[in-house]
């Protein structure tokens, strides 16, 4: 058997043995990409939110909706009070089209 033929057979054997072991080592087929929040660089409330994102998606969604509404409402009221201090009439306006 020539030297080159021996090398070719060894390569073929490697492929036949290696490919199934790579496939087995790879585990089950890939599913959808899952994003995991990194909790190592945050603390306090941010860490709580990031943990919630990782553990309970439904509770995270409820929290986002409620907190966004509350924060929006709170900021709205605060800005209302602040602009009210300017003395502008903020309760009525004229409807002028032209």
């Amino acid at each position, binding site marked *: 058997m020539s030297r080159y033929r021996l090398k070719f057979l060894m390569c073929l054997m490697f492929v036949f043995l290696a490919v199934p072991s790579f496939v087995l080592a790879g585990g089950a087929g890939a599913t959808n990409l899952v994003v995991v929040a990194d909790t190592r660089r945050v603390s306090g409330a941010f860490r709580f939110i990031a943990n919630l994102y990782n553990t309970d998606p439904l509770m995270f969604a409820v929290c986002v909706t409620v907190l966004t509404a509350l924060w929006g409402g709170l900021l709205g009221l605060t800005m209302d009070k602040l602009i009210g201090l300017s003395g502008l009439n*903020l309760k009525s*306006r004229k409807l002028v089209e032209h």
Partner: protein
Amino acid sequence: MDWLYLYMPIAGVDIFWPGLVLIGLSVGIIGGFFGMGGAWMVTPGLNILGFPMAFAIGTDMAHIAGKSIVSTMRHSKFGNVDYKLGLIMVLGTLAGIECGARLVMHLEKIGHIESVVRWVYVVILCLIAFMVFYDYYKVTRKKQPGTSDANHTPEGITWYKTLHKFKLPPVVHFKAAGFTCSVWLPIGISFLTGVLAGFLGIGGGLFRMPALVYLMGCPTHIAVGTDLFEVMISGLYGAFTYSLKGRVELVAVFVMLTGAAMGAQIGTIATKYAKGYGIRLAFGLCVVACIISIILKQFKFTMPSAICILSTISLMAIYITVVMVKGAAQELRVKKEHAHVAG
């Protein structure tokens, strides 16, 4: 300069937070003035700051919900929100968005959906721009001396008068908006604008505001307030559904909302000092900028497209702030003079 960057734990990126405040502020001003969420303006901005596209859309949606709450509260105090009309339209909008989204899913199977969507978007925006500028041209011509009756306020496009003749029961009176029509008219119009919004994947304020003005006959200020009320409801739903899919960065939403709360007040108060046709004309210019940016994007000029949108936002925000500051200064001056005379 590390303190200028904030770590976003979910998206896993460091973001320049003053940029978030500025985007929130500008879009708050524009949204409060025109009565729309402004998703088409925020998403490219967030993407440029470093957010992956999926997070940019979800975060934008949650921020719009919060911002619309601030604007609706202020518009409501001015009497600019017709709640009955808004609630009736929500029914049509939600059903329409669902139909539009299903249409997209169906078209996705055929392929080339992105290009089709963009061109549909461009055609509809061109129609809106034509409507706005044609209406303005008609009114300006009628206002010229000798061409109009001095006792009557000139009107431009009056398609709503024809649509109001359609009296299929139940017929409802909308007090704040000041018209009576069949309940099927707002449901039908909001359904159509909803289908477009669902098909194009946007909030729909860009279509609903002109539809309220030209097809329903709403005064411009009431159209702005009522549309924001609808944006608030659809935005909260969007915030929930996107966060359920894990695509909302709450930290960014809170930072943006802080800027947007200030902006929404400026934009909303500016409507008090702006004339209806002034708002319509500025809206038309925004639509033209939107058309240019979509065409640029279609031909793969992504950066010029984002620059076009962001420069339009900046210029429009500055213009609206000037309107608000000038109007407020004038009001305070008059108030002071009255107090001086009375004293």
